[in-house]
């Protein structure tokens, strides 16, 4: 059923190209139209500001019934993102809805960068520091941004 690219995916891809979201670039791979290179600008006012973050995004066979899969390729110090770049975000798991789109997922990830949730951690060390000494945690995140995302 899912061999041909669904109209839904074509519509989303076209709209992302025609009407891009500021600070977000999404480019499909030439050999796999379900697989995208993503570039996110670190959100203003966050320790990731000024950084350029690369991600990969894949739409599984039963998208949009199932959430996209997303991974950071650029390392970042963040309580909800682990060392392999995996992201802990409710809408990518049990709170996914087919009404959400690639665009909303990426905006949510940007929002997560601005507002980490150290009570639901994937990187325990970063989450602990975020709760104990938020100034130091943000400084670490800023250092990683300078080291890896510029």
């Amino acid at each position: 059923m899912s061999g041909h690219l669904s109209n839904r995916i074509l519509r989303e891809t076209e709209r992302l190209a025609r009407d891009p979201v500021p600070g977000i670039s999404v480019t499909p791979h030439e050999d796999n139209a379900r697989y995208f290179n993503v570039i996110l600008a670190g959100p203003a006012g966050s320790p990731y500001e000024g950084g350029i973050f690369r991600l990969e995004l894949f739409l599984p066979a039963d998208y949009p019934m199932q959430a996209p899969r997303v991974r950071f390729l650029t390392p970042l110090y963040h309580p909800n993102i682990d060392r392999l770049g995996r992201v802990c975000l409710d809408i990518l798991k049990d709170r996914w809805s087919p009404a959400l789109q690639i665009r909303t997922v990426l905006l949510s990830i940007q929002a997560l960068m601005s507002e980490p949730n150290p009570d639901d951690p994937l990187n325990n060390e970063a989450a602990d520091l975020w709760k104990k000494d938020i100034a130091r945690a943000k400084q670490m995140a800023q250092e990683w941004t300078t080291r890896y995302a510029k």
Partner: protein
Amino acid sequence: MFGADLDVKVPRNFRLLDELEKGERGLGDGCVSYGLMDDDTTLTYWTGTILGPLNSAFENRIYNLRIRCGSNYPESPPVVYFRTRIHLHCVDSHTGAVDPSRCAVLRGWTRQCTLETLLIELRREMTHPQNRRLQQPPEGSEFSAPSNAPSGR
């Protein structure tokens, strides 16, 4: 569970993340296992272990392996080395490298094959009549890592 839909190709990295999660949950009867080396974010360097099968020269021995999944995985098979010394027809007796031309699972590799099937099939090779009774090196000895072996970064 992998590649059930032949028309939708799961890209290398997401495929390997799936394999990693499956390996972390634990595989079947526990006779083989694998894991990612040193949080390798490129998902390239893996370790594997095989518990030698009963009623063979490999019984009660634990074999450590190094596996390298290149950028073309899973279209192309991984490169596999034994770290633990072993005498097996498909393994180079000096380096521990598994010879793809002598190893059925590597020779016939398709994207449906996984690190789990690789290790299970290598374990099955140990029970093959030509291998089963081969005299084995002293337990616990290791191959000296050749310069091109996937031993880390």
